[in-house]
C-alpha cells in the first residue's frame, strides 16, 4: 500500500466524518470480523422515498475498516436504498482507490457487508 493512500486512510481514521450516533434509525446492523477483532455498527436513516438522508457508523476496528466505513457512509448519503442494495465490492474499492492484499481486503469490505446487512434487514449473525 503506497504512502499517499496510507495518508488518506490515517486521516479518515483519525478524523472520521460519519462516526457517531443517529437520533432516528430506520435500518441498522452490526457484525464483526473475528480474525481482527473488528466490530462495526452501521445506522441508516431514509426519507419517504427511501432515499438515504443520513448514515453513521460506530465500533472499533483498524484504520482500514474505519476509513472504509467513513468513505462508504459519505458515498451513500443522498442515494436511494436500491442503489445501495446493488453496490458491489469493486465500487467500494474504487472509492478507496487502494489495492488490498487478501487479508486486508476483509477489513476494507467489512463496512459494505454490515451496510448491506442493515438495508437488507438481516438479523445479526445471519
Amino acid at each position: 500500500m503506497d504512502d499517499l493512500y496510507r495518508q488518506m486512510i490515517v486521516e479518515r481514521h483519525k478524523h472520521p466524518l460519519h462516526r457517531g450516533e443517529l437520533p432516528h434509525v430506520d435500518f441498522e446492523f452490526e457484525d464483526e470480523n473475528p480474525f481482527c477483532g473488528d466490530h462495526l455498527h452501521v445506522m441508516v436513516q431514509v426519507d419517504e422515498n427511501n432515499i438515504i438522508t443520513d448514515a453513521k457508523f460506530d465500533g472499533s476496528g483498524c484504520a482500514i475498516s474505519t476509513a472504509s466505513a467513513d468513505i462508504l457512509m459519505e458515498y451513500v448519503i443522498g442515494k436511494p436504498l436500491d442503489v445501495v442494495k446493488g453496490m458491489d465490492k469493486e465500487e467500494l474499492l474504487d472509492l478507496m482507490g487502494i489495492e488490498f492484499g487478501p487479508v486486508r481486503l476483509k477489513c476494507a469490505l467489512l463496512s459494505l457487508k454490515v451496510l448491506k446487512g442493515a438495508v437488507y434487514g438481516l438479523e445479526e449473525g445471519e
Partner: protein
Amino acid sequence: MAWDAARLRDDFPALAREVRPGVPLVYLDSAATALIARPVLEAMADFETRHRANIHRGVHTLAEEATALYEQARADIAALIHAPDPREIIFTRNATEAINLVARTWGQANLKAGDTVLLTEMEHHANLVPWQMLAQEKGIHLEFIPVTGEYLLDLDAMQRLLETTRPKLVGVMQVSNVLGTVNPVREIIAAARAVGAVTLVDGAQAVPHMAVDVQAIGADFYAFSGHKMFGPTGIGVLWGRAQLLEAMPPFLGGGDMIRSVSLRSFKTNDIPYKFEAGTPAIAQAIGLGAAARYLQEIGMENVEAHSRALVDETINRLAAVPQVRLFGPGTGRQLASVSFTIDGLHPHDISQVLDTRGAAVRAGHHCAMPLHTRFGLPASTRASFSLYNQREEIDVLIQGILLAIDLFL
C-alpha cells in the same frame, strides 16, 4: 504443442540419475509415485526462499504473498479438473486422507446402521479401509461391484446391486492402479444418482494421465494425490460440491477451520477452510498448483496419448513372452499400468533383477489385496508409464524380464 520427448525428460531432474555407475534409471513406477517436475521444484523454491510465511492471518508482505500463492494454487487445481469454484478444492495430505475426510464427515453425518456403501472389487485400500472402519463403527453394509474375468467392472451386476441394496454412497476408482482399467465413471455415476446415491471417485490414477472434468463426470466427490501427478509428496486434494461441503460437519479441529473460539465452543469457518485445520502444506499446495499448470500446458490429450502408446506396446511385447500372464483388460483398454505374473517367479525377484538393469517396477499387491485375492494371486509385478517414459525403456523392461526367466526358471 508438439510432443518433444527430449525437452520433457529435461523437466524431470531425477531422470539424470544413474541407479549405479553406468546404469541409467528406467523409471517405470510412476503409478506409485511419479517423478517431480522442475517447474514444481521451482515454484516451491520460490516460495521457500522468497515468500515463506504462514497464511490467512498475517498482514505483512510475505504473509500476503504466501496467502495469494496458496489461493492461486487452489484456483489452478480447480481449473485442471474443471471444478466450478476454487472453494470446492480442499487440500489434504494425499488421496487417502481425502477419502477418509468424506467418510468421517459426510459419512459420519449421513450414514446410519443398515445403510449400504457400494464399492468395487478393484478398489485401492484407500477406498476400502475408511469404509470398513465406518462400517465397524456404525453398522453399515459394504457391497462390491464385481470385476469380470476380462478385468472390467460388471455393470450388469452393478445395476442389480444398485436396485437391491439402494446404496447411500457409491465409491469407485476412475483408473485401476493395478489393471490399468479405465472405468466408465460417468455411466456408473448416472446409474448411482438414479437410485439417489452420493458418489465418490478415486481419481488418483486418472488426474496424472487423462483430462478430468468433475462436472462432466457428475460426481459429488473426487479425490487425488499430488505426488502421482508430478507434484510434491504431502499434498492431495478432495473436490466436493459446495452445497454438500457446506452441509458437512468439520473434519479436524484447530486453527484456520474456525471463525471464532471460546473455551468450550467454536464456530466453523466457511469452505474450504472449514476442512483445513492448522497450518496447511503451503509450499506443497503451491507446488501442486505448478504441477496443474504444467499438465495443462502440455495438454492432457497429449499426456494420455503418449501413455496409451507405451502401455499398448508393452502389452503387445509381454504377450509375446510365453511365461507371462497379463493381468489387465488389454490394449486400448488400459491406462498407465501394466501388471503381470510369471508362474514360479516371485514378483520381488523379477523386480530385483530388473533393478540390476536400472528399471524400477513395483512388486506386490499394490494396495489392492482384495483384487489380487479375487484372481488367486498373492502378488503381481507392475510397470507403469508416464509422460517422461520412452519406447527404448520398454526394451530394458522386456530384456530384464527375459533375464529373470532365464535365471530363475
